[in-house]
């Protein structure tokens, strides 16, 4: 459970992992019926609309104003989103793109 949580970027605690693990197990047991079904040669259904490769003219159209989007960020600096250091350093230093949020 902790491994899947790490893949899903969820910082679940030990107690929560136990509860979720139990619920997970009971759900997956019920879902095992899928394993008993013969799906040999059946095509997967990957979409519901039947539309294939919808294309439009390759011309630029206006997009949302950057300010409207940046103003909704939890932390920004100028025209950038402010995030903890991504590469280099010890991970706790203030980096050139802004570093960790204060």
């Amino acid at each position, binding site marked *: 459970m902790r491994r899947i949580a790490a893949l899903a970027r969820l910082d679940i605690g030990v107690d929560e992992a136990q509860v979720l693990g139990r619920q997970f197990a009971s759900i997956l047991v019920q879902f095992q019926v899928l394993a008993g079904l013969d799906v040999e040669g059946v095509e997967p259904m990957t979409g519901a609309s039947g*539309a294939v490769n919808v294309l439009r003219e390759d011309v630029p159209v206006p997009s949302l104003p950057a300010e409207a989007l940046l103003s909704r960020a939890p932390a920004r600096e100028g025209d950038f989103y402010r995030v*903890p250091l991504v590469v280099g350093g010890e991970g706790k230093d203030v980096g050139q793109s802004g570093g960790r949020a204060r």
Partner: protein
Amino acid sequence: MSTYSDLDATALAAATASGERTARSNVEDCLRVIDARDGELHAFLSTEREAAFALADDLDRGARAGVPPGPLHGVPVALKSNMCLEGFEANCASLILKGWRAPYTATFVQRLIDAGAIPIGMTNMDEFAMGSSSENSAFGPTRNPWDKKRTSGGSSAGSAVSVAAGMTPIALGSDTGGSVRQPAALCGIHGFKPTYGRVSRYGLIAFGSSLDQVSPFARSLRDIELVMQVISGFDANDSTCLDEPALLPEHGDVKGLRIGVPKEWFPDALQRDVRARCEEALAKLRELGAVTVPVSLPHTQYAIPTYYVVATAEASSNLARYDGVRYGMRRDGDGSLQSMFAHTREAGFGAEVKRRILLGTYVLSSGYYDAWYMRALKVRTLLRRDFEEAFEHCDVVAGPTSPEPAFEIGAKADDPLAMYLSDTMTVPVSLSGLPAVSVPCGLVDVAGTKLPIGLQIAGPHRANARVLRVARAFEQATDFARARAPLFGGAMFGRGGSK
């Protein structure tokens, strides 16, 4: 003059266009009902009074200046909190998006506004539309106007209750696995999920992208048809939107129409009263000239696991964007980027959302992908084939929308699997991308409390108008859609009255 809550959208728009009412008076009446009722029902997470009055005054000024009225002229409408309207809070009933105001307006919302509708506020829902009772809202559940101890269903709970309690004549929800049809059934109103792709999803915050469909609630089917005419049709901003013009209603009766009755939708364990109401409804349709034929959807038992594999896989991918960088909540961890992601998501998501993200991550993870996700996609094909084969023998299929009437809040809170089974009859239709409507088909008595039951009518791919035609024939021949909940309307209108 009829009072606000007695009018459906069609009648309200006509009364407003004729000058008998004003858009401003509609907004005033709407807010009066919300103020009278919403303290106990909790349909709304926010109301936008200034914006609503501004729109109403614009419409009234336009009407005086001779601007032709739109088909929804002056009609208040409620929007689910996963829908974008610039400046309105679209928080998906989640802490992670609390306070987030949409930077743009969804295509279907803009079409409503262009038709003269007035968005009044954002409604409560299960967090990110994951649930069947609204108990997964971060802000507390919505209560059923038929009995406030009970759930209104979900996930589009607040939109259903807004209509069922007479706050707005129409509302929009989104239906991924039954999230409009099930609450419509539990609240005694109409809810219509169009064929996948019939309404643009641009501006609908994604949960399961191959399943999500914007879907209207109303107390009359002519209102459902009216809303569909306004919101449906091609939109270049959604590549899965069908390239078809707006939906036009189909007139006519049901004489000779073949209604398939899937035996899997009437299992032995089905509640006796639910079975009775649905069988009576089918008998009424026979009386109107339709023919019922037994059909089978043999893979129905696989629908719930298939749905929860497909929908959680899509959700785990769609919800990866909530990482504390671009919008919503942020929680710093130990100073690293990865830790900030994980702390933000842990603090921002509720238990059911985490459960589904984890399930989705698991079924997509290396070593399990083929056994779970790919297998589920193949079973999805089998489920769709079930319907294709059934529709060789019938024109539509019908059965209960929900296996039970509204249950008490808390009754399934600790058992996610029991909650998932609420969707048994709606999920196969969703996985197959088919249109389906839930229509009120009578009441049952549960320990002295009257609760509504819904009949689901589903049709082949793109047979939206046919499904609605059958529903309308049923509506016109019965009184069920005119039954009102005890907590309907504002007390000042002399309706209902508090329990």
